[in-house]
């Protein structure tokens, strides 16, 4: 029987916990170079010799006083789940601040081991740390690691297991002693808690300190156990706090913080020798340009522009390959299979549906690659720094900008990323705004529509759509802020991490995860959607047509045949072309009438009155409705509805042009796609992160905004005579 232990990885944000976690467990969790990449605890398993280890990666925190949700998650885990050991990961190049949390974790009286990560960075900075001395001073094992190079991980595990055993054999954590006055208060409260006979499952000293610090959560626990006795303890705490306040003219927690830093300063003095010589700080040099007074913002705009430019221009080539692959497939299916309902399903349903979406895989991958690059280098945090002023002017928080930028990739992780925001108001507000950021799933719709109707100007049109999204997001933020979320702005405090070379592995992991997700979507939602749409559009089979198309075809054919027979060679060619055109036209008309009389046609007709004022025909209306499942489905539905399965590349484009859609209605539709209800997954994420109320609000609000926006675009166009 193997022994089972739980190891919790804790530490400051951006100190490399997830990198170590990935190294330990072989997992592929997302890492990045900005504080707050990990917002949820993640679990992984590791087998080491005769032990089964469960490793838990916690979100980063600056202290055990919780401010934002991610920090509460981390603290709750350490306190309530009783991990066998807390592995406190410390950024060696940032020792002083890291030790602040470390000391608090130490106070919990649990087995702790310190991991001095990024040892190479510290060394490069000329910082020399005496780990033996640190281990001696604080009474716990200390190991060095270099996370991104997978160094020291083995030692980490071994030391951790050894420390667990030491505690099992009766070792106790060492207390950190503070100044006399503080210690006086602590011991007074300790005896007070002992007298009350309240049973506590955590270390006495820690509880005493937390009550003195006026920690609401700890106090609540006491009240739940013994309301009366708890009040007596709290009374004593108030007396102590008052005494400290009179002595130092400051709150207890502030005085204690100062004290903790005092202890840390002492420790640092003992263990760190700075080999002085300030080396050239690359990070600072990079920032000389990237956050410069004059260049900062233009460079930022350039990066965003370059990101989209790359997405479109570089993505075009693989897009062409996939497209020809799809048309090759449909042609071979067409020629191999005999005419049947199954063939129709395969060709017009599945291949048309999926084929019209899968070609966008390269674009999406490039977009995600760029965003991952922003995250891994450390530029992401800078964007918040650059944009805080703008965001603040619209009543938002600079940190809101990170989720918004991520929203260009996918809204779902973007909404998760709002967890780094400390104020609940800002969080909900950002969550409500993020869906307006045009995600990569909407891109195919734009490319199809803008490509079909705007030709050379497609790029400009798409860029202005993205811009519109941002403007609508910020305007909504401003509006909601003044109506629903009144009150003080939350302060902006954010660490700006040094720039780091992105790890290729992490970038690849990120892209692989994305492709997997996209392909899963293909095989799941989009496949299913395509089949359903095809079914709805193919049945009922027996439709009475308004005109007899078949006789018409026969009639036209025989007419032309006669002409062709009598004509000379040149004339024959001309007539043949004419015939094909006319026949195609008739077939198209037949198909359109058939679809319009199918189930989906009936649904479309039912929806028509709603979409008519914004210039969107019934087919597109249906596509929009199905887009709720996933935005790519809009394209696949159009693919099925316009029956492009057997027509090869550029097919949808031609079909759209033939369907009577104008550039104006295409624009109106794109605006609608940009603004309307986010996909099902996003709405569920909103529900999960906020409440049903806000998810519902988002549904209604985005629909109204989208309809209003499209109405404005379309009707203005009509008045200007653009239709």
């Amino acid at each position: 029987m193997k022994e089972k232990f739980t190891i919790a990885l804790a530490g400051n944000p951006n100190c490399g916990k997830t990198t170590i976690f990935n190294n330990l467990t072989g997992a592929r969790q997302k890492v990045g170079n900005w504080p707050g990449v990990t917002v949820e605890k993640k679990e992984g398993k590791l087998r080491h010799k005769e032990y089964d280890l469960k490793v838990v990666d916690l979100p980063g925190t600056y202290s055990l006083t919780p401010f934002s949700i991610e920090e509460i998650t981390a603290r709750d885990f350490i306190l309530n789940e009783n991990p066998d050991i807390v592995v406190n990961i410390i950024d060696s190049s940032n020792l002083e601040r890291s030790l602040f949390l470390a000391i608090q974790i130490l106070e919990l009286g649990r087995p702790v081991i310190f991991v001095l990560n990024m040892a190479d960075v510290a060394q490069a900075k000329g910082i020399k740390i005496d780990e033996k001395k640190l281990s001696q001073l604080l009474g716990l094992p200390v190991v060095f690691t270099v996370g991104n190079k997978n160094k020291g991980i083995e030692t980490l595990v071994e030391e951790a297991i050894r420390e667990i055993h030491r505690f099992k054999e009766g070792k106790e954590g060492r207390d950190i002693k503070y100044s006399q006055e503080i210690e006086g208060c602590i011991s007074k409260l300790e005896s007070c808690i002992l007298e009350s006979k309240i049973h506590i499952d955590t270390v006495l000293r820690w509880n005493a300190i937390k009550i003195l610090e006026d920690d609401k959560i700890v106090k609540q626990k006491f009240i739940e156990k013994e309301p009366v006795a708890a009040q007596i303890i709290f009374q004593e705490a108030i007396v102590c706090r008052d005494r400290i306040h009179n002595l130092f003219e400051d709150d207890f927690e502030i005085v204690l913080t100062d004290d903790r830093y005092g202890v840390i300063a002492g420790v640092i003095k003992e263990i760190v020798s700075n080999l002085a010589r300030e080396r050239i700080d690359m990070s600072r040099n990079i920032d000389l340009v990237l956050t410069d007074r004059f260049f900062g913002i233009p460079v930022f705009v350039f990066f965003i522009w370059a990101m989209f430019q790359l997405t479109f221009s570089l993505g075009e080539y693989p897009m062409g390959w996939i497209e020809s692959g799809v048309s090759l497939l449909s042609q071979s299916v067409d020629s191999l299979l005999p005419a049947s309902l199954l063939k129709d399903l395969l060709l017009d349903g599945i291949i048309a549906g999926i084929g019209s979406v899968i070609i966008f895989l390269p674009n999406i991958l490039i977009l995600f690659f760029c965003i991952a690059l922003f995250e891994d280098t450390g530029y992401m945090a800078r964007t918040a720094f650059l944009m805080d002023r703008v965001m603040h002017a619209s009543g938002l928080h600079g940190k809101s900008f990170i989720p918004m930028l991520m929203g260009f990739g996918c809204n779902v992780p973007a909404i998760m990323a709002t967890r780094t925001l400390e104020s609940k108001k800002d969080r909900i507000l950002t969550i409500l705004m993020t869906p307006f950021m045009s995600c990569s799933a909407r891109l195919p719709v734009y490319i199809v529509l803008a490509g079909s109707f705007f030709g050379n100007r497609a790029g400009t049109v798409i860029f202005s759509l993205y811009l519109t999204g941002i403007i609508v997001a910020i305007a909504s933020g401003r509006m909601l802020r003044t109506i629903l979320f009144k009150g003080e702005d939350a302060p902006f405090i954010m660490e700006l991490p040094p720039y780091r070379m992105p790890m290729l592995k992490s970038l690849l992991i990120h892209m692989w995860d994305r492709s997997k997700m996209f392909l899963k979507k293909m095989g799941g939602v989009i496949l299913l959607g395509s089949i359903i749409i095809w079914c709805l559009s193919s049945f009922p089979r027996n439709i009475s047509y308004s005109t007899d198309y078949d006789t018409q075809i026969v009639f036209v054919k025989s007419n032309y045949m006669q002409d062709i027979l009598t004509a000379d060679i040149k004339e024959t060619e001309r007539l043949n072309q004419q015939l094909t055109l006319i026949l195609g036209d008739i077939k198209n008309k037949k198909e359109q009438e058939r679809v319009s009389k199918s189930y989906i046609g009936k649904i479309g007709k039912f929806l028509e009155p709603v979409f008519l004022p914004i210039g969107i025909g019934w087919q597109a209306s249906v596509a929009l409705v199905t887009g709720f499942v996933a935005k790519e489905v809009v394209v696949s539905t159009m693919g099925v509805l316009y029956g492009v399965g057997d027509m090869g590349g550029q097919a949808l484009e031609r079909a759209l042009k033939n369907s009577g859609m104008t550039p104006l209605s295409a624009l109106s539709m794109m605006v609608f796609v940009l603004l309307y209800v986010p996909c099902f997954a996003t709405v569920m994420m909103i529900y999960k992160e906020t409440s049903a109320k806000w998810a519902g609000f988002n549904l209604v609000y985005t629909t109204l905004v989208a309809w209003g926006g499209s109405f404005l675009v379309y009707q203005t166009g009509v008045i200007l005579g653009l239709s």
Partner: protein
Amino acid sequence: MGNTHEREKKQFKQLFQQQGVDQFDLRFMVLEAFLKLEHHVTIQEIMEQIRADGEKIDEDFVLNSLELLCRFGFANQIEFDDKKPQYEHRHLGLHHDHMVCTKCGSILEFKDEAIEKQQLKVADAYGFHMLQHRMEIYGICSVCMEERRSLVLLHKAKQGEKLIVKEFEAGKNMQSRVSSMGLKIGDLIEIVSSGFGGQVVIAAGENRLVLGKGMAEKISVQPLDPIKIMKLEKNKDSEDILDTPVTLKQMKKGQEGIIRKVSGEGVFRRRLLEMGINRGSKIYVEKYAPLKDPIELVIKGYHISLRVEEAANILVENVRFKKK
């Protein structure tokens, strides 16, 4: 000096005997007593000296004699401020000016050629022929200044004095009242008038503020060295260390300092502290964002950004430009 004094006595004898001044011996005694005393003396002090010499002369006579001495150029009568007249030796050909401490009353003699020349120049420029002049600088002597250097309460500050607001005593109530008037720690103020029933009128920037006695008593101020003010105004960007704390908001790019105080609303303040922005830490202003907000700071060796508005909560002292 001895020689001068002997010469003066000789001249005195000559002159007074020539003029046929009465009671010559007694008057000579007055002169002797006066010459024994250095610096600036009052009648009373001369009387004491005469008594110490074992003589007995009545005050009117001494007064009369000193007037004579003044007339013949052996003494100068000076009246500083609103005090009693004082006398000093007048050594012909040797001119000096005075600095008078308004606190302890001590008088400092000084001579500055530049001033002397400047006076002649000024007079000349106005077409004025200068015969003689008196120049007195009123202020607080170095000894008194040293005593006061640390902190004074506002109501005790002298009129015309330039001061820096250092501390508000008493509760938050008081603090908010003062700050609602636009006065905050680190402000430079000037006393417009003081003393009318304890009321103090101060100038803070371009504002006139009237503080009641109760309030003035609770504000600690630090007198500012006029030379330092001059330096401050002259080269604000110089590398001089500012003694006066400023808020982080007022710091410029490239300046560093030591955090003196972190104020602000509870949770926010704790967050700052937990991220390492605590009292006594060294802080460096790396840069302002392109839109002037937020600020990028370096503290404890790492970079952090804060909004300007929030930076106003952090008081920094010993601010200076970091040497490259």
